[in-house]
């Protein structure tokens, strides 16, 4: 984990200094005197060689100083922490909806192989998967916000209940995409497991179909499902960047885009560092769930 974090830090630092675009010019705009921009560059150390800037940055990092947002004129971590809960909420909400959709869809699709229900699920998931998320988001807004007025268009709200309401459509937009993949994976796993000897044995012993599905089939099918869910969660964290822009959700995704456009170095650095950490933590969490689902892994 430390290597990943260190690697990400170094790579992002170097790339930011290499891409064109000066933070001081972006900060002060076109009206100020040129000397003001030059003074800013000196104050911020941007006139120094890249390696000197990196050493200075590391020195600050070791002291726990995560820098200052030039654009917002506040400590970068403060700006970041204001927005982080929004994205975490959105990501977890997305996963909750995705799981709620994908498990029933996967089961229905697997247990109705060859009939109209399976066809509907298959075609529906194909259509959803082929839609770009920003387009799907606009479509959902048009139908559910503008026409039906069931949900607001974008935003975050002020209370927990408002968060659930405001973020439903953004979460649904993301969830629909990953739910289709999860449902298909679950379907394939279930179909494979249904051919297993132990399932046939269980049925032969007189277990009900319901009991066989829950105790034998689903638990085994969930192993690959959970693996994919972990990858999906990591994808969702990154996918919020587009959705937050489309829906105007004030999370770290939209913050990242704005900070890149403004060349707000410290904010970008913090943002990407946390993204990397989240992915690592999610992978770890996924690994930790395996023993819970499958005791054989625990025994191993």
């Amino acid at each position: 984990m430390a290597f990943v974090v260190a690697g990400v830090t170094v790579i992002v630092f170097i790339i930011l200094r290499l891409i064109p675009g000066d933070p001081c010019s972006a900060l002060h705009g076109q009206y100020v005197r040129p000397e003001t921009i030059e003074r800013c560059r000196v104050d911020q150390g941007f006139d120094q060689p890249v390696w000197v800037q990196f050493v200075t940055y590391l020195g600050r990092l070791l002291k726990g100083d995560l820098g200052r947002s030039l654009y917002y004129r506040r400590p970068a971590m403060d700006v970041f922490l204001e927005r982080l809960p929004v994205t975490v909420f959105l990501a977890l909400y997305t996963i909750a909806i995705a799981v709620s959709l994908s498990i029933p869809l996967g089961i229905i699709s697997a247990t109705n192989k060859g009939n109209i229900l399976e066809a509907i699920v298959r075609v529906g998931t194909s259509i959803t998967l082929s839609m770009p998320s920003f387009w799907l988001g606009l479509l959902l807004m048009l139908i559910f916000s503008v026409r039906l007025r069931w949900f607001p268009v974008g935003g975050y709200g002020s209370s927990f209940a408002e968060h659930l309401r405001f973020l439903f459509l953004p979460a649904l937009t993301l969830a629909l995409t990953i739910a289709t993949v999860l449902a298909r994976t679950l379907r394939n796993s279930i179909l494979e497991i249904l051919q297993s000897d132990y399932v046939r044995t269980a049925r032969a012993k007189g277990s009900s179909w319901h009991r066989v599905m829950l105790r034998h089939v689903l638990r085994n099918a969930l192993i690959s499902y959970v693996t994919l869910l972990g990858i999906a969660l990591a994808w969702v964290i990154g996918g919020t960047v587009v959705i937050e822009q489309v829906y105007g959700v004030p999370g770290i995704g939209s913050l990242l885009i704005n900070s890149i456009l403004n060349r707000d170095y410290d904010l970008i650095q913090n943002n990407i560092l946390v993204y990397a950490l989240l992915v690592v933590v999610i992978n770890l969490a996924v690994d930790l769930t395996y023993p819970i689902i499958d005791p054989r892994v625990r025994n191993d």
Partner: protein
Amino acid sequence: MFKLRKISTVSLILLTLAVACQGQATPLPRATATTDAPPPERTVTAVPQPTGPNIGGRLTMTLEFSDITTLDPVVPDDNSSIWTILNVYDQVFRVSRDGTTLEPDAVSGYSVSPDGLEYLFDLRDGLTFSDGAPVTVDDVVFSLERMLASENWGFLFPEGEVTVEPAGDKSFKLVLQSPYAPLVNNLAGFWSSIVPKALVEAQGEAFWETPVGSGPFMVSEWVKGDHITLARNPHYWEAGKPYLDEVELRPGSDDNTRVLRFQAGQLDVLLGVPYNQIKLLDETDGASAGVSPLMGALRLYPNLAQPPLDDLNVRLALAYAIDRQAIIEAVLFGYGEPATTALIKIPGWWNDQLPGFPYDLEKAKEFMAKSSVPDGFELTTTYTAGSTTDEQIAVLLQQQWALIGVDLVLQPVDIAVLTEQFGAGQLQLNQSFWSSSDVIDPAETSAFFSCRRTQPRQGFCDERINGLYLSSGTIMDPAERKAVFFEIQELGNDNVYWIPMLYVPSRWAKWDYVKDFELLPTGNFRLWEVWLDK
């Protein structure tokens, strides 16, 4: 029998309900007079409808495209922050509703010494911050000193030549080393907002998270990146205002999202309506959409340090080959007008006598034939990536200039790159600096005339224009000063240092129950005058 009674009771109840639910009650028969005299004529007098502003209500509207970065008035250059600041603080002066004059805001009046070096201002009586503390002269002096020392907006006043001093309990003065004509006008900008000295000094940066001002509204909630809620300032000096209880300002986002929000009824007012949506929203039942005059313009900045743009004939050819009206029709859907000079249309300062560069392809070809590149050349135009308007304009320029042999290469870059490269003189043609003004004096937006800016950015220094610009601040006679700006624009056109493109309006949409909402030519709005008829 019992059953019949039950049915009758139910029927009676149902009948009663049916009568009660009727939209119009059946009139009871009137008692008739016992005499044979005709019944008196009835005159029906209409119940007078309430007129004038309704007090109360909550307005929700968008701001500009970016988030509010800060409420420190001497810092921002983004409109989201600026427009919020203008409604939270008082400034020394403010621009009138029609954008033609100044109104006293935090001051009640002022006088100028005969030599023009000392301005004495009287602080308005009863001026109070939203926390109930009175606004004092010390607060004003502190605020203006901060502004003069600020990096972003101090340039509007002669550097190091202006001091602010108290002049009693109710007055303060600005003392100058030499006369400065735009002084009073420049005190109408958001940068001259009055802030409480004691609180700013005590709280430092934390103050700007929940600032206290004496303006019509105060910050009651700020969810960063999502919205800021302003509540009525109960101590506001203008009696009876603001009419609204609360205003929710939402930073803008994606164009489509903002329009959908408006259509879904989540916004009462929408700013920055995409050009192609104005008609659609105007045709929506219960809503209006349109444009308002704005002191805003787009101009092209050729880099004279990069041949063949140093050739006047080339620049003339480029200027005359642009069919600006076609661009307005295609890109701005007819909302806008061709620009004729490099200065934005500030009333009284914009040279309306100049014809500009009306589209004339033959003339453009003649200039190209006389130029150093009669067979044409390759030119790169740089504009803001992600801006549909800028890209569409670039594509049309590419088509129009192809007719005179110019091969225009389109180079979209993000704004940080554009600003840096333009400042370093690395662009051949900058297509993407839209210009506007926060005050009704050209001082703020005419700095680009000076050699301090033209030399590094565009590779030239016109000493005559530079001299005129630098002297414009010291000329106190309005007619003489106006003549200076007129000459600058004429020289600018004669030499085609800047290619005027378009004058653009503000674009808005609102529901019809929103009353007295207007966009000023400076682009901002006076929320303390807005009320809701619902």
